[in-house]
């Protein structure tokens, strides 16, 4: 049961006749009478069990974009209903106007729309639908909440997709498909063609020239069908907030851009999100189905407040890859990497694979490093300098082990990783 403002107004109107009364009995009688009237009104209102609801939520929406969730509501009774309704979503689903009013004739159904602008990645769930059925006098009515589960999967924003066209153009240059000549690009044999003046004499294929009677040169192109495995670290360090989002989100952006680029370049993309167990996995997907599957799998990955199990990562990677591949580890280069076993894992992986360790830098620390206003700021700068030196040391150790290290701010990490991938590809190191 619920009361309306009309009941309160009616109760307040009792003050007018109360002015001609003595004592408090009239006021009590008036208010109790009004409440009794409201109770009767609620009692004769249509039953709440005669309201049917059905959700028609969209399956997925990209973060920062809006969508509308449908809600079908049906009057299953033989009476007219005057309803108000709250379509409750969890706050981060960003539901705009959740309250609706409508009248339904007997047996009639209507579809209501609630605009959702999610503010966070992951599965955003709908809560109960609360229905208020007004009584005929509008003084009160029945209220019930109906379980109506619904989920909208909020996909990663993939803001770094704006970097994709320029990287694809670069890829085509390496590939030789664009007009730009690029000597020495790639390592994979493509075809033989006649020598023209200006070609590198070192690329002459003497055996073929002897057989054909004309001078032939070998042409190369970048390798295709290489394996690219991205390991996304979802452990404790990925939970720290850099800018407005956790580190993990920057890692997801980098994963998406790298995977999109590698898939276009003809490589086989695998992605795994790991801390102590595997949180998400995408493998064996090719073509246009790969990116939606990847976004869907990474949408629900959340940072876990536990230490990463790096030896398990090494075993997992070696189990997944049977031949030489590019392994991109998206984690945080930090002094704790020494204790946690990242160095040993990288050492083990670099024996067979090309390893890139990518780390999200904190722009706040760069700001601290430049602080000179007072003693406090200078101490902050010293602390930031000490952290930077420590990270440098770890990065140097990683490089000594043969890994490539990419360190960039949250917005620059994705293009930086993509550029490193292109550089490796152009150098024929994959």
């Amino acid at each position, binding site marked *: 049961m*619920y*009361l309306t*403002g009309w009941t*309160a107004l009616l*109760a*307040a109107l*009792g*003050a007018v006749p*109360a*002015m*001609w*009364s*003595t004592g*408090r009995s009239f*006021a009590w009688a*008036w*208010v109790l009478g*009004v*409440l009794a009237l409201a109770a009767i009104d609620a009692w004769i209102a249509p039953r709440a*069990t*005669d*309201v*049917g*609801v059905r*959700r028609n939520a969209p399956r997925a929406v990209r973060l920062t974009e809006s969508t509308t969730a449908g809600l079908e509501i*049906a009057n*299953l009774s033989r009476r007219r209903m005057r309803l*108000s309704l709250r379509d409750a979503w*969890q706050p981060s689903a960003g539901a705009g106007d959740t309250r609706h009013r409508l009248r339904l004739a007997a*047996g009639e159904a209507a579809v209501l729309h609630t605009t959702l602008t999610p503010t*966070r990645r992951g599965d955003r769930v709908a*809560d*109960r639908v609360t229905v208020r059925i007004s009584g005929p006098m509008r003084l009160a009515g029945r*209220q019930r*909440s109906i*379980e109506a589960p619904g989920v909208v999967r909020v996909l990663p924003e993939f803001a770094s997709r704006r970097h994709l066209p320029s990287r694809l153009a670069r890829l085509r240059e390496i590939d030789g498909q664009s007009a730009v000549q690029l000597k020495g690009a790639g390592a994979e044999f493509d075809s033989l063609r006649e020598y023209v003046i200006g070609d590198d004499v070192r690329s002459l294929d003497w055996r073929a020239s002897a057989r054909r009677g004309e001078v032939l040169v070998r042409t190369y192109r970048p390798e295709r069908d290489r394996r690219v495995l991205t390991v996304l670290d979802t452990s404790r360090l990925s*939970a*720290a*907030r*850099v800018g407005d989002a956790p*580190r993990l989100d920057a890692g997801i952006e980098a994963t998406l851009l790298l995977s999109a680029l590698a898939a276009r370049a003809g490589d086989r993309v695998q992605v795994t999100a790991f801390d102590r167990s595997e949180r998400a996995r995408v493998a064996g997907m090719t073509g246009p189905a790969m990116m939606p599957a990847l976004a869907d799998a990474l949408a629900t990955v*959340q*940072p876990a407040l536990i230490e990463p199990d790096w030896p398990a990562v090494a075993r997992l990677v070696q189990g997944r890859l049977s031949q030489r591949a590019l392994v991109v580890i998206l984690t945080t280069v930090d002094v704790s990497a020494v204790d946690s076993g990242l160095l040993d894992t990288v050492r083990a992986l670099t024996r067979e694979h090309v390893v890139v360790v990518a780390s999200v830098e904190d722009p*706040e*620390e760069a700001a*601290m*490093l430049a602080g*000179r206003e007072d*003693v406090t700021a*200078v*101490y*902050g*700068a*010293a602390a*930031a*300098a*000490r952290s*930077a*030196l420590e990270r440098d040391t770890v990065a*140097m150790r990683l490089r000594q082990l043969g890994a490539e290290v990419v360190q960039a701010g949250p917005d620059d990490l994705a293009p930086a990783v993509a550029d490193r991938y292109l550089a490796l590809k152009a150098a024929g190191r994959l």
Partner: protein
Amino acid sequence: MSVDYARAEARPSLARRARRRPALVVVAVLFVVVIVLLVWSSKPQDYTAFSPENTAGDGARAAAEILRTQGVEVRKAESLGSTRIGDPATTTLVIAEPHLLQEFQVEALLDYPGDLVTLGVDDATLRLANTGLVSTYADATTVSLASCRAEDALAAQQVEAGPWGVSGTPAQGVTTCFPTDRGAATYVDLERDAGRLTILASPEIVTNDRLAQEGNAALTLRTLGRHPSVVWYVADGFDSSVPTWEGGDGIAPPEAVPVSPDFLPPGTLPAAFALGLAVLVTAMWRARRFGPLVREPLPVVVRASEATRGRARLYRRARAAGRAGAAMRAHAARNIGPRLGVPRTAGADALVDAICRATGRNRADVTDLLYGPPPASDADLMTLTTELDRLESEVHRP
């Protein structure tokens, strides 16, 4: 109509729920019955001072009850108009706190054709009754002897007098008793044309707290118990009526009653009460939530730079200027080295040489700046930082 709509579960009816939990119903019914009984049986507690129904220390219930057991009928009047005395000759009219009465009410009271007792003293009564006395106030209460010829006072022998009293020269026929050493009296007795007027200038004598002290009880009971019935009125300042009695018309109240500013129209209080109840209803309207709150699992939000900030605070609290200076120097060397093509593995000399070549600075200065003694104070640290910044900018200049 499709069948896959989600619907609210039908709740068991009230009767079925009651049948399932009979004990709950019994408890609820008992609760309601007890509450109703308590409300029904409880009279509003009387907290008015000198009221014959007030059982607190400043009430006069004890005196009234003793009078009742002695066969005196004590009636409390809510207003002067409701006194409605049947036989003034056998009824004592008791007025508590007479200073709250208005002058026309005092005039009307003095016309009362029977015995009049005031618990308390006010100058209007003293003046209009031609006693020749005025009221006085002393800080202390003292025990004083009767020292007069009035029978009631002699029977009481001595009472606690004060702090209020009367002083001055009494007029003809006015008896004052219980004088204090400051010359104030506490008991005034005089014969009017209509009947006797007795003034108990210190009304505390009749209160429950003090009735048992000295001769207080004797004085009280003798003064109030002269006649078989007592009408007791406690003045409250809001009553503008005049006393009424059989055969008398009293004095008509004046047309314009001087009222105090907070004297509100008659229906105000009931209307305000009704509005108060309406506020409760409004609260019931607003308090009902439109569905339950929705839970939001919040992510852990810790800034990545938190550890660095903590370290900065530690440096500052420990005044670790030396340690901070070492970090700044190492960072500067790390920035300058690659710029000048000095590998990390090269020693300090190689770096200093390269810097001297690039900037043309004195070798001793550069060595002192990068590898000198650690800064000892905050000021030294600031100076060192500025110097290092200048060196870096010189190196970075093309």
